Every structure is written in C-alpha cells, then in structure tokens.
C-alpha cells in the first residue's frame, strides 16, 4: 500500500510565491519611504536588482544552453541606449516613456540577439566566446563613434548621453526582477525549455531526437539578450547618464563571474551571487583599498571548495519544501502499514 505523495497544486504554488514577493515589495517600499533604508542603501538595492536580471539572463545562455558568450554587456548597452534615446527624444512624460523605454530596450536587444546569435552559434566553446566578445566590443565602439561618423547627435559618444530621466526606483526594478525570473522559470519548465536543456546535455542526441538545434540555440540566446536589454534600460534610468565605456569587456566578465559563482544552471544561485557580489564591494567601502582583495579571495575560495558554484545546479523551490513538511506525518503512519502488509 502506497500513500500518495501530496502535491501542492500549481495555482496555489504561484499564489504563495506571488504573495511572498508582494510582501517583499511592500515591506521594501514602506521601509524606504519611512527612511529606515537610507538613500544610499536604496541605490545599492536597485543596483542589486539590475545585476540580478543580468545574471539570470546570462544564466539562460551559459547555464541552460551550455554556451559561453562573453558579449553580454553589449546587449545591455543596446537596451540602455535604446531606452535612453527614446526617453530623451520622445517628449512624453517620463512616467509614460519609461515603461515604453523598458519594453523597447528589451526588444531591440532581442533583435541584436537574433542577428548575432545566428552566425555566432554555429561555433562552440572558446570560439563562441571570442566571437561574442568581438560583437560586444563592436557594439561599444559603434556607440562611441556613431555620432561623428553619421553626423547625428544621438549617443553623444564619449561625451556621454546626459539628462536621462531617473525613473528607476526600488519598486519598478524589483517588479522587473520578478517578471524576468517568472518568465525564465516558466520558459525553462516548458517543453521548449527542456529542448534547450537537451542541447546542453548532448547536442547529437538532441539532434537525433528531432530537435531543431539551431532554432533552440538562437531562441535561448535571444531570450538571454532580451533580459539583458531590460536590465540595460533600468540601468539607464538608474544612472541618468550613459557612457559606452561602462559596457566594456570587463562588465561582461563581471556578469559571467556572478553566474559561475552562483552555479551555472541555478537561478537561485544567480540571484544569490549577484546580490552578494554587488553588496560586498559596497559593504567593504570602509576598507577601501582592501576590498578588491576580499572580492578576489572570495572567488578563489568558492572555486576551490565548490567548483560547480555556490548552488551547483540546485534550484530552490519553496513549494517543494512545504510539500516535504506536509508529507512528513503521513509517511510515518504508512511505515507501520507497510510493515503490516509484509507480515500479512
């Protein structure tokens, strides 16, 4: 006799998560408004949110698709500049143009994802890393020089694109974080997500299962670019000023470090390490000159003791834990039943 394992139905799972997330947002917003969280700390929180989106988006390409792109900052730059140019030029009220800018930023980064993904994903491993690195640099250099070459006043190149409305807040940043995580999670749990995973697991087997690997590679890569663009757009509204130099190669590496440290293929890992790696340099400001040493020591320690990253491929599920708690008592009862059955 087997006791059925009680499962929490899907709508309830989503409801629990939504409630908890809403509670987090409400507590955060009220703490900020009451002044319990300082302005400086709020800024750090916003930066954490942006970095979380960047890390979970790169995690699609590295963790789930199993590729190693090094041009993530390029997609972020496309999103940031698209949103910033739209907000400064549209003449709409910032409260209207900002959400539109976010969507436009994400979409334009997605288009670049397709354009770059189709040729780049024919390559594998280090070759893909090099070509995406190249594309990332191309985007940065184009943003730097496009004005003088074409005679526009669009990106203002090295002189920086200024006076972007600072519309990014704690609330809208973390709303975007929630949306990004939810979309990526549901995508990866779907059949299409499993197709993406199967490419990581074994490309030849995936192909002989009838999976169109070119399509799914580009799909994963594009999804990754879309959310990077979203993060870029938030970044534009966070800083109020954009300069191509902030989207260099080191930015891509920084994001990659977050993903690798958190564990490739674990969304919770990405969230956690993005939080820690953004917070640590800020928290250690008191020790100014030593903070980069601590940062690098942390990376080395994790890579020595847990090479698969903090979380490995583990993904946290609150519902799964709740299910275990609910199921604990009944299982004890069934052990007696089982013993009885055997005797009988």
């Amino acid at each position: 006799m087997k006791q059925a394992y009680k499962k929490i139905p899907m709508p309830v799972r989503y409801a629990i998560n939504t409630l908890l997330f809403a509670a987090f947002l409400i507590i955060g917003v009220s703490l900020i408004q009451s002044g319990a969280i300082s302005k400086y700390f709020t800024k750090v929180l916003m930066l954490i949110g942006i970095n979380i989106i960047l890390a979970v988006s790169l995690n699609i390409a590295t963790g789930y698709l199993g590729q190693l792109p090094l041009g993530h900052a390029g997609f972020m730059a496309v999103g940031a500049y698209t949103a910033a140019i739209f907000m400064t030029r549209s003449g709409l009220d910032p409260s209207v143009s900002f959400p539109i800018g976010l969507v436009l930023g994400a979409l334009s980064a997605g288009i670049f994802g397709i354009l770059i993904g189709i040729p780049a994903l024919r390559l594998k491993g280090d070759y893909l890393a090099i070509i995406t690195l190249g594309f990332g640099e191309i985007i940065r250099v184009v943003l730097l020089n496009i004005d003088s070459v074409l005679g526009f006043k669009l990106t203002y190149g090295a002189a920086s694109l200024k006076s972007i409305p600072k519309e990014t807040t704690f609330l809208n940043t973390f709303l975007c974080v929630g949306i990004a995580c939810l979309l990526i999670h549901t995508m990866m749990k779907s059949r299409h997500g499993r197709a993406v995973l199967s490419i990581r697991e074994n490309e030849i087997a995936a192909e002989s299962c009838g999976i169109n690997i070119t399509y799914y590679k580009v799909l994963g890569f594009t999804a990754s670019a879309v959310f990077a663009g979203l993060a870029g757009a938030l970044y534009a509204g966070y800083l109020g000023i954009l300069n191509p130099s902030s989207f260099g190669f080191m930015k891509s590496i920084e994001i990659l470090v977050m993903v690798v440290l958190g564990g490739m293929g674990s969304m919770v890992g990405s969230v956690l390490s993005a939080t820690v790696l953004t917070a640590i340099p800020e928290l250690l400001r008191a020790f100014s000159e030593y903070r980069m040493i601590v940062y690098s020591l942390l990376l080395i320690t994790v890579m020595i003791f847990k090479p698969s990253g903090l979380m490995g491929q583990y993904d946290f599920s609150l519902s799964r834990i709740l299910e275990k708690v609910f199921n604990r008592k009944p299982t004890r009862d069934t052990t007696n039943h089982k013993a009885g059955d055997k005797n009988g």
Partner: protein
Amino acid sequence: MLEVQNINVFYGNIQAIRDISFSVEDGEIVTLIGANGAGKSTILKSISGLLRSKTGDITFDGKSIKGTAPHKIVAQGLAHVPEGRRVFLQMTVEENLDMGAFTAPRATFEDSIANVYERFPRLKERRRQIAGTLSGGEQQMLAMGRGLMSQPKLMMLDEPSMGLAPILVEQIFDIIQELNRAGTTILLVEQNAQMALSIANRGYVLETGQIVFHAPSSELLTNDAVQKAYLGG
C-alpha cells in the same frame, strides 16, 4: 523503404565513405558490419542528416532526404539511436522519453510511452530516476526507448551492444527482434558481427569505407572470408 545511392562522405580531406549504395526493405533487419573505422557510424550519420554526402542520393519512403535537416528527417519516421547511448544524463527517464517524442503529435504521447514501458519494464520502475544514475544496459534501453517515442518506421541502431555484459547484449537483441516483429524496420550497425548476423535478414560487410560483401546473413555466417575476418575463424 530506405535507398542509399552512391554516397561519398568526407571528414575534411579524408574520405570516410566511398561510393556506397545499399537498400533496406520494409520489415527487414539489415546489418552493416565491419571493423573499427570502416565507416559504419558515418553511414548512419549521413542518413540521419548529421553529416552531408557530397554526391548521390538517399531516399526514405520514396522521398529524397539528402540535405534535409536532421529534425525534419526524424519527423518523417526515421529514428537514429546514436552510438554510445547519449542519453540526457541530468534528466529523468521520463523526461528523456518526452524529448524523444518531441516531433510526434502530443495526442500519441500516452500510447507511445505505454508501449515503451511495456517493452522496457525496467524503465517504468525507474521513470523518476535521473538518467545519469542508470547502469549501462539501462541507458541503452533508455536510448532505444527514446528512439521509439517518435514512432519511427525505420530505426537505426548504432552499436547497441557496446560495453554491455553478454547477458544484456542478448536481452537487447531480443528486444530488437521483438520491435521488428511489431513492424519496425531495423538498420543495425554492429561490431559484434556474430550476434548481428544471427538476427538480421541481410548483411553488408564494410571495409575502409567500401562495401565488400553483400548477402543474406545465413550465407555471411558460413562465408569463409567473413568468418576469418570478423567472426574469429
């Protein structure tokens, strides 16, 4: 059912397959045997579209499939169970089977999976287990089950006996025969020539990219030259 005409396949400048033609009729078990590097796997890969032939033609069910993308070939009813099993190690058994049904219509899923579980009761027992924790034989069963999920008319098996204990090899070959009786045409590539010829209708013997013999398997089993070269005297 499958007609291969004069294909030539190259890896870079090296020619792996020289002008090979053969055919598989409906309901048959046909085996390709030969030593390491004779080009057996290369032939299967070029049929399933993983490699391209520079010349000739490959027709399946009356339609040319040369140059067609691999995922479209699977959808036409030609499954390839690749060499070395290649299951998705980090997915569960059931998820692996689900990936196999990727091209099949959703409505047939329950039937196909029931069919696979009936043939491989072992997989049903372990359906929630991560595929990487299965034994070699179970992984081979899973690879074959995954191939079956697309409901193929023709199934190409690349060295299903590789690295398995003799008793498991026998089991696997029994299952291949059962599948064939149930109406699936089989193209089998094997190093274990004795086993392969014992269940096949016809056999082709390959040597350095060329077909050197072609005969009903009973003849090949008694042929002196084949005996010496592949069956150990």
